[in-house]
């Protein structure tokens, strides 16, 4: 399985281990001592892993007997050179090898994924099964002993996965091509799913070597979500070699992005059966970096504002007051502390060309940025925003939210904030912050747009 994850559309990312000086705030990175005092998440020390987190499910949770275990290898496609898809191949082989030697009971859910920054494996089962689950997951570190013919055949399975996810799926092909274009010059432009040509060229020896290099306990993080004690988790960790445990390094986003007028390129995807639409993507570099969870929250609120039919939103001028976009969607995400990506997907109304849809959207966005978000709109949308955060006082829901947050943060090679730190972020979001982000969104960056539809729709 592959997931494509670069940015974070919710508070699913976290600060690096040591926050830079720019953040003059009470927020500090999580530390073992602080975490250990917080009931929701704790850190197990002195394990073979780079880090080990336990997210504590309350005893009164209706599923207190169920435990989920994640093992996340902190190397991703963006780190690599050579043919794309090699890490995805390694993920398949490692997981098949880990599961073939101990038949897994069907009461355990499981899966694995590869994205630009990590490879993940997870199992879910009963609390009594915790030691066996951690042991089974840890087998992904063992040397791969699958039959050579089976290993070679697995490339055909990768081709079948490509067929399923990409080949007959126009939207997926558009997304792959746009990512290549918008992230060009960076590791993020690489596709974990790769192309059939890449997949056919994947070498078995190279895959085994990459497995040895990346699948080490010192390069992996363990996350356990369950009603289990730290001692129980520590006791369940098998003896594993304790290699070097350097801190996770995030792949830097180094694209050179212009200031001033955004650069603009259009990719055309002719398809006689496609419903005409555009996918517009822009990356900008911020004037000043921002703590990434805070940035993600500000972007989520700005997205909500732009999505409305209120003054300052896009739905009025594009959808309700004028018939330009039949429907649209917006996403805003933080690639890192300094880079933001906006995606606008829209289908034109009858008689509206894709080009007119694009220019109308850009004009409306620029107009909203110039005028700023009206106070009344901001106040109204801000009241709706509480759903972005977990229910802080509901222990079951909070633990569930934190489990997802920690897994997402670790997958993005970040150190998660703790509950107290996260709880302080909301008060640090203002209308000025949003207007500043909106201004920067129209003041530079790299833009790539896909026009999809009949040949006649594409000009």
């Amino acid at each position, binding site marked *: 399985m592959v997931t494509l994850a670069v940015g974070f559309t919710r508070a699913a990312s976290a600060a690096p281990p040591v926050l830079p000086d720019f953040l003059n705030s009470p927020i500090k990175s999580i530390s073992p001592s602080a975490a250990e005092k917080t009931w929701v998440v704790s850190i197990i020390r002195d394990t073979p892993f780079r880090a080990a987190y336990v997210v504590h499910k309350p005893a009164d949770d*209706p*599923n207190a007997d*169920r435990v989920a275990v994640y093992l996340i290898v902190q190397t991703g496609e963006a780190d690599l050179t050579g043919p794309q898809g090699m890490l995805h191949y390694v993920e398949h082989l490692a997981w098949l090898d880990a*599961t073939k030697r101990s038949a*897994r*009971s*069907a*009461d355990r*859910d*499981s899966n694995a994924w590869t994205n630009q920054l990590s490879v993940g494996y997870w199992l*879910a089962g*009963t609390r009594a099964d915790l030691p066996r689950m951690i042991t089974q997951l840890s087998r992904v570190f063992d040397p791969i002993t699958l039959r050579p013919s089976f290993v070679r*055949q697995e490339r*055909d*399975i990768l081709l*079948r*996965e490509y*067929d*399923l996810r990409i*080949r*007959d*799926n*126009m939207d997926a092909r558009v997304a792959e091509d746009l990512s290549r274009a918008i992230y060009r010059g960076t590791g993020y432009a690489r596709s974990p799913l790769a192309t059939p040509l890449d997949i056919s060229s994947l070498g078995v020896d190279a895959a085994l070597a990459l497995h040895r290099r990346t699948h080490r306990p010192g390069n992996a993080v363990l996350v356990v979500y369950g009603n289990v004690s730290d001692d129980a988790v520590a006791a369940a960790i098998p003896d594993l070699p304790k290699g070097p445990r350097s801190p996770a390094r995030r792949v830097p986003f180094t694209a050179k992005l212009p200031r001033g007028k955004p650069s603009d390129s259009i990719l055309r995807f002719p398809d006689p*059966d*496609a*419903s*005409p639409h555009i996918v517009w993507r822009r990356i900008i570099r911020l004037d000043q970096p921002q703590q990434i969870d805070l940035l993600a929250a500000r972007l989520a609120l700005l997205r909500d504002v732009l999505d*409305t*039919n*209120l003054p300052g939103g896009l*739905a*009025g001028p594009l*959808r*309700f007051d004028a*018939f330009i976009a*039949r*429907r649209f969607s917006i996403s805003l995400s933080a690639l890192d502390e300094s880079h933001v990506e906006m995606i606008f997907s829209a*289908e034109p*109304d*009858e008689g509206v060309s894709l080009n007119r849809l694009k220019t109308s959207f850009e004009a409306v966005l620029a107009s909203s940025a110039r005028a700023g978000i009206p106070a009344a709109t901001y106040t*109204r949308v801000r*009241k*709706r925003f509480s*759903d972005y955060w977990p229910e802080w006082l509901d222990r079951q829901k909070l633990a569930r939210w934190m489990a997802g947050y920690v897994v997402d943060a670790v997958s993005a090679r970040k150190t998660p904030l703790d509950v107290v730190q996260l709880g302080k972020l909301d008060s640090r979001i203002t209308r000025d912050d949003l207007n500043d982000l909106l201004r920067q969104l129209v003041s530079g960056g790299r833009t790539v747009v896909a026009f999809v539809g009949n040949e006649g729709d594409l000009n």
Partner: protein
Amino acid sequence: MKRIFLMILVWALIPIMALANGRHASTEISPGGLTYHLLMLPKAKQVSIRVAWPTDWPFRQGANQTVPFIGAQLVLSGGAKGYPAGKAIEKFADLKAGAFLQATIDHVYGWLGAPSENIDQTVAIANAHLRAPLLDDKWFRRISKGLKREFAQRNAVPAMKAYTAIRWAVFGDQPVREALSLDDPAAFDRASSADVARWAQETFTRSPDTIIVAGNISADAAGKAVDRLFEGLPVGGRKMQRDAKADFSPRRILLHLPGAKVSQLVFVAPLPPTANTSAADGFSDILLAMALGDGDQSVLFKAVRTKLRASYAFGAGLGAYDRAHRFLALSGQVATDRLAQAEGVVRTAYQGFLTTPPEDDLKARIAPVLAGLRANRSNPVKISANAMLAALDGEDPAIMLKLADVVGGLTTATIVSRLKSAFPRADGFVVLATSPDKNALPGACVISEPRGAARCR
């Protein structure tokens, strides 16, 4: 586990009773005389109201089958008296409310959800849209033209063509087939806003088949909300004329798609309708389908991917064309040069499943299902959805509060018994493949368009 809730279609009759944690169910009559089922969930913060309005439009010869789909969107999005298009959406966002209308073959389903304190305002807005939708021509054209393009794109995907062809095989040219596929783009052009008005008038009445209210809400408040929701709607009560004949007789068909880049293999066979299935048997069906084709430990995955190495994944699922026609589907993309081999492997694996069911595996799969049920024990959205389906089958919606007991009471013996009595024989499937190679399935009836499947006998 979300899938579980989508697949559940029927439940046994279990008496209404007070239940643990203050959850309880009752059948109530609103002050305005409407009967509804109330599922009291003290821990829920939201209230969900679901309504199932009966329809026979998709069974009607000559009716434009695009109209219910256009209508469901137009009524929701196109504005209503007092609520110009675009206003209600912001009001709903303020209220943290949500709503949808879904047109299916035998019912139009409506859902409303909002925090308990906002439910009165939410139903008032919904009532305006049901009672006095604007049905503006410009909005009608926006929605009909958009749906035309959407369905054209969807129906062009090879995997969708396989299911379109199966519907031709099962239903021939009966109207219900067209309603399920919407594969005639010109039908969208022939529809009019007057058609939608007629459809809305005959559909949204004070005579639904079922009303469910779930959440932390008193019978008094729920009754008032129900009355407000139905205020001013016509009485209805017309007898439905639903007549469709399904032919699931076994056939082997290959839809030749020269331009396709991949091959698809689908097996479809009937299962008993939900109205004849107890809750325990309904869950047994789910567990059996999971053991057959859900995840890397399942029978079909092991057969087609792990052993034959012909597919990334081959799965099994439960589906329904309408409430009378339920089916088991086995499907997956396979390598074109292994299509014929895969057909044999799937059939053999399924036969093995019938004769020697994986009893340990079936038993082990109960725990994750139970976990899903427990996680949603106070979720009014999911509980109300299943309660509505139960009620439509003539069952008591109270069973939604006892599902963990039902599933906990399953044994390997009862699950296997269900397999033996209700699941199709290995030679009882319609087999349909799509492939760029017209010789990929020797002996199959080869067609070049989905409608050709109707002629394969």
